[in-house]
């Protein structure tokens, strides 16, 4: 059957340009091209940034791996003279790479890994995936294909024809691989001094062949075992090094491979960074910075984090969500053209069209702002475009400053809250960030309790934190913090002074110690009571007073700088807040949509006749809804005749009851046909299936409400 058709193949050449043009025209309103460009450049920046972060985070791991590989290799080199001892062992050096459950992120890691390896250790790297290797034959084929291709890359042009011959070779066996390896290494040896200095100086002589199993768990045990046994047989001819990518735990190696096989491996374990830490870094670098003008609103961030935590632990997906946010924002918000770096801001503000000015005036946050101004300025703002532009520029600059301050103070606050017992405001800075974005954080109970706890901190901790805060504020780009830093430093010196003063108090402490020597319960009780009373009456020590001051000062800073972004004027321009859109696209619930459509068609079809109280459906609902509703009343099997009868009862009652009796037969046929259609639609949707258990019955496939 012909089920696929491909029209307009001739016009193929046209498509290239239309795609490009389309992008700029797709937006329906202002400044689309600029917006699109801004969006693209922003995304590219963020993308390269994330890649950089990923690289940095993996650096440690990769370095370890590289050193391991070169070590295993050099062992081989040294032992060339003592082949016999090597042969006895026949062990394959193996790196077990524990990468965590976020399988989707592994790709990037492996890509980085193979790049690094090809750069530093060996040109012969093969990446194998379980889905490509259902059998040992496929595995060998794949392996040889990759190795010989990389051969092309290294040896480039000259040997092309020779390589092509080898590629065409169908017989893929270990021996052919070995002969290939020998020929290749010999060639490089001979050529090294003359031509290939650059490339081969990095690679040592007779470089190892690295075989990477990306997803070790999904390989068939048979394939793995066979491969390991075979390559261990040939280890002295072909220096193979294996790398296992493991998502679960290193135990899996021993579960997959019997002892006889795993004893052929010389395994070293490597652990990659956990995905949570990865995410924290990403959030830290992408969101808690004023480098990027685009910001995520609280709900959006919450959605993204929740998808990460509850669904996949995938940093890639988080970034994908972030990308979607950017696209959505620039696509749906015409004013997002102003969501740019400060440098470009002025130009863009002044080139705004009058429509765009209207858009600004329509922003709720801007209206709130206008209402607060005195009447003369109000009129100016609402009527004079150029005045509005000036004001807008100023406000946006304010917003930028606000961000800079916000981030620094947030970090300071995090220094405090992250060391409190039980973490009332969360352990991670992202939690604190969400709390601050959501509403005025100082009004929450959690904040209250964390202040309480902060008032009980001991001195060393407090001093430590203050020092950290000073560092953060010093390094921040915000200009307003000079005074704050001074103040904090003053606190620090005061603490210093206290230390000296406290030595005087030692006397008092020692007197208390004397009391402790008497172990008499009665006395102890008495002294405790005394102590309690004295504490109640005693005025605070200097340290305590100072501690209160510090906490109060921090509190003041928080109130000043951590105002939620929603309260800022023009926050709509840089904040993306459409969490539901995002959630609908990333974390959709198809079954819920079906459920709603079937149970409450009025939700979609805005017809008065469909409106029904109590969430039920009327008898005028679409056929499939009625049929569905009726089938809900049945057990495991449904009698088609009963179903049909019930359906026609409903439908005839729903339609005009005074229909002619004469044409009833005709109507019946139509109803019959409609019933058939609705039933087969339900079958397509997977609610029922035909059953052979009883004639003219169908089986229900769902249990309960849906």
């Amino acid at each position: 059957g012909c089920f696929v058709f491909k029209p307009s193949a001739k016009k193929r050449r046209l498509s290239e340009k239309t795609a490009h043009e389309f992008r700029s025209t797709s937006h329906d309103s202002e400044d689309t091209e600029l917006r699109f460009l801004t969006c693209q450049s922003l995304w590219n920046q963020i993308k390269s940034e994330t890649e950089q972060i990923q690289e940095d985070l993996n650096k440690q791991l990769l370095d370890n791996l590289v050193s391991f590989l070169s070590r295993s290799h050099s062992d081989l080199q040294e032992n060339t003279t003592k082949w016999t001892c090597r042969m006895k062992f026949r062990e394959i050096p193996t790196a077990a790479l524990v990468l965590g459950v976020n399988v989707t992120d592994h790709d990037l890691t492996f890509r980085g890994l193979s790049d690094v390896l090809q750069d530093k250790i060996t040109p012969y790297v093969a990446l194998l995936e379980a889905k490509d290797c259902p059998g040992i034959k496929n595995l060998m084929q794949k392996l040889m294909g990759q190795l010989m291709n990389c051969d092309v890359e290294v040896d480039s042009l000259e040997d092309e024809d020779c390589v092509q011959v080898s590629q065409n070779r169908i017989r893929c066996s270990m021996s052919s691989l070995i002969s290939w390896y020998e020929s290749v290494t010999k060639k490089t040896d001979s050529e090294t001094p003359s031509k290939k200095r650059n490339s081969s100086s990095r690679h040592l002589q007779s470089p190892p062949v690295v075989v990477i199993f990306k997803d070790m768990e999904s390989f068939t045990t048979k394939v793995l075992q066979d491969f390991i046994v075979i390559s261990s047989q040939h280890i002295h001819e072909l220096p193979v090094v294996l790398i296992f990518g493991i998502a679960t735990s290193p135990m899996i190696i021993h579960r997959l491979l019997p002892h006889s096989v795993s004893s052929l491996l010389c395994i070293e374990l490597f652990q990659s960074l956990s995905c949570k830490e990865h995410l924290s870094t990403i959030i830290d670098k992408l969101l808690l910075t004023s480098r990027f003008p685009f910001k995520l609103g609280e709900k959006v961030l919450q959605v993204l984090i929740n998808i990460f935590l509850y669904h996949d632990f995938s940093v890639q997906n988080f970034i994908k969500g972030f990308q979607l946010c950017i696209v959505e924002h620039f696509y749906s918000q015409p004013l997002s053209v102003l969501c740019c770096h400060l440098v470009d801001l002025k130009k863009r503000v002044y080139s705004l069209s009058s429509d765009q000015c209207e858009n600004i005036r329509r922003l709720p946050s801007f209206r709130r702002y206008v209402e607060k101004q005195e009447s003369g300025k109000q009129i100016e703002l609402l009527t004079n475009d150029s005045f509005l532009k000036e004001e807008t520029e100023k406000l946006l600059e304010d917003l930028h400053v606000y961000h800079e301050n916000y981030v620094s103070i947030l970090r300071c606050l995090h220094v405090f809250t992250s060391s409190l017992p039980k973490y009332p405001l969360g352990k991670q800075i992202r939690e604190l960030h969400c709390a601050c974005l959501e509403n005025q954080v100082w009004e929450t109970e959690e904040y209250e309790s964390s202040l309480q706890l902060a008032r009980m901190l001991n001195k060393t901790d407090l001093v430590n934190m203050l020092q950290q805060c000073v560092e953060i504020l010093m390094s921040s780009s915000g200009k307003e913090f000079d005074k704050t830093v001074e103040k904090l430093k003053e606190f620090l010196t005061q603490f210093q002074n206290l230390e000296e003063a406290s030595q005087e108090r030692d006397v008092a402490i020692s007197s208390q110690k004397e009391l402790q020597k008497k172990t008499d319960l009665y006395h102890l009780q008495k002294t405790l009571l005394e102590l309690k009373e004295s504490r109640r009456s005693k005025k605070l020590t200097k340290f305590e007073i100072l501690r209160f001051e510090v906490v109060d000062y921090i509190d003041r800073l928080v109130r000043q700088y951590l105002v939620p972004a929603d309260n800022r004027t023009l926050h709509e321009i840089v904040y993306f807040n459409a969490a539901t859109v995002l959630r609908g696209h990333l974390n959709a619930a198809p079954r819920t949509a079906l459920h709603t459509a079937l149970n409450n068609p009025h939700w979609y079809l805005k017809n008065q006749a469909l409106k029904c109280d109590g969430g039920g459906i009327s008898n005028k609902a679409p056929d499939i809804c009625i049929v569905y509703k009726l089938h809900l009343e049945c057990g495991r099997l449904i009698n088609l005749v009963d179903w049909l009868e019930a359906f026609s009862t409903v439908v005839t009652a729903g339609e005009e009851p005074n229909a002619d009796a004469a044409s009833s037969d005709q109507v019946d046929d139509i109803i019959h046909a409609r019933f058939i259609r609705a039933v087969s639609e339900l079958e397509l949707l997977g609610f029922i299936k035909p059953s052979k258990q009883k004639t003219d019955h169908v089986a229900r496939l769902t249990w309960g409400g849906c």
Partner: protein
Amino acid sequence: MSRPEGTRSSRRCLQVKFVPDEDVLKHIADDSGTKVRKDKAQLSVSVKRFVKKLENISDNEAQEILEEKNYVAALGICAQESLGNGSNISGGEVYSFQTPKRSNKMAELASELAQTPEKNVAPDHSKCPEKMAKTPQGKMFLLMHVFSLLFQNKKKEFVSTTPYRLRKRLAAPDPYLESESEYSASCSEEEDEEEQKEVSTVLSDQKTPTKTKAASTPPPRNSLAKKIKDQKMGNLVEEYFEAHSSSKVLTSDRTLQKLRKRRLNQQTLHDLLKNAPLAYAAEIRDLNQQHESLFSKWMLQLHLGFNIVLYGLGSKRDLLEKFRTSLLQDSVHLVVNGYFPSITVRSILNSITEEVLEHIGTFRSPLDQLEFITKRFKEDPSLELYILIHNLDSQMLRAERSQQILAQLSSLPSIYLIASIDHINAPLMWDQAKLSLYNWLWYETTTFNPYVEETSYENSLLVQQSGSLALSSLTHVLHSLTLNARGIFRLLAQHQLEKKDNPSYPGLSFQDFYQQCREAFLVNSDLTLRAQLTEFRDHKLIRTKRGADGVEYLLIPVDESTLADFLEKEDEDV
């Protein structure tokens, strides 16, 4: 309970604590009859359970709502932002367990929906009075049934987890019963319960309003909510397995054959539906227009490396078709009708390599082919391909390997995939790895369009359809055979039709058949006949079965009416 039934006594002891009043009633009821003892036991258990539940209804609800809220909050839904789609329903509502319902509940609901109950009482439902006469116990017995029935009703309501409805029902239980009593259920022999319902509902009109009211007032709350909830969950699980373990089917035995309705074939069905006006056409058009406004956005997102998947009730074929005609005219694109019964991944890959890439040659495996495609697309950045797949979740594409290949295909940067899914379990096809390859953006596009094309290929338009399709295939295959072969098949068909009244007809034995064919000069040796039969079997025209005595029986696996139609047609042709 004073009843000396050994096995159940322990359970009933518990009961005393909870419902002493009922206990008294049951004392009396017990004397009156032994026939219904079994049912009563079940009912009383449910009474007990219900009373317990009733105590905790409000607690439970509060807690459930709270939990839902937590979950909702966790997922970051915000209540104040109104949704454009229906995703504000909590999972509990969609996936809730319910008590299994009996067959004629459907009819009940139908009449309820029809809202004109008197008119809709079917004529064959007149058995009930006599059934009532069959239970000539005293009034007290009936009273008890009313009780248990009431409890059952309310239990059902409760389980459906719609607090609003529950409250409504609790406030006014009697009107509900009254409306029910006007309707009599279709009776089949298994349905003892129904019969009781009839009896009791009738009675409830006469007698017991005060008592039922008393019983339905909820007792004071207690703090066992959590425990009870667990128990409820446990019960529901048990109920599920109960309902699915018994092979006994509690449905009526009526069949479509007995209905004097003629079967509809594909063509008439199509014609009839064409004549029937589509309900709510205007609203559906509005809905579709809403979706069409998203086209440019889809295009943008496709270009940015996302792929798009559409879900929601209604055929999305027209929508995709419109997308194609309005935006893809100038670019290379591939339309895959996933619902087509013979589609394979191979054919998709073939059409890419052969038609799009204009490559001549075959591949050893789909993986090789995929690799070739990947290579070509990577080499030539000017190549772009849009793939539209109607019903990515169809039977043929559902398999893990097909999805893997499609996912890898879609992950190529210059291949843009837009697909639709309909099956409720479609998302289960994809694991994390595939999802990340697909890089989906989900779009809800509920269209309410009828699935015309999608269902037309299913030969499972249930019973009505299977006949006609078989008939067309029969004639089709037979027309390509020799005259003798057709004669052989006719012979078999005629024989089968003659024996149609015999339900245990095993088929025609091979020897008899051979004899008959020889007599009709259709074959000259049993080898030729066997060769012919093999051909039939290959086309699934006949089925062979070995009987207990080792004799081979031949049977045409088609129902009588189709067979008769077929013979009629053949007669016309000859």
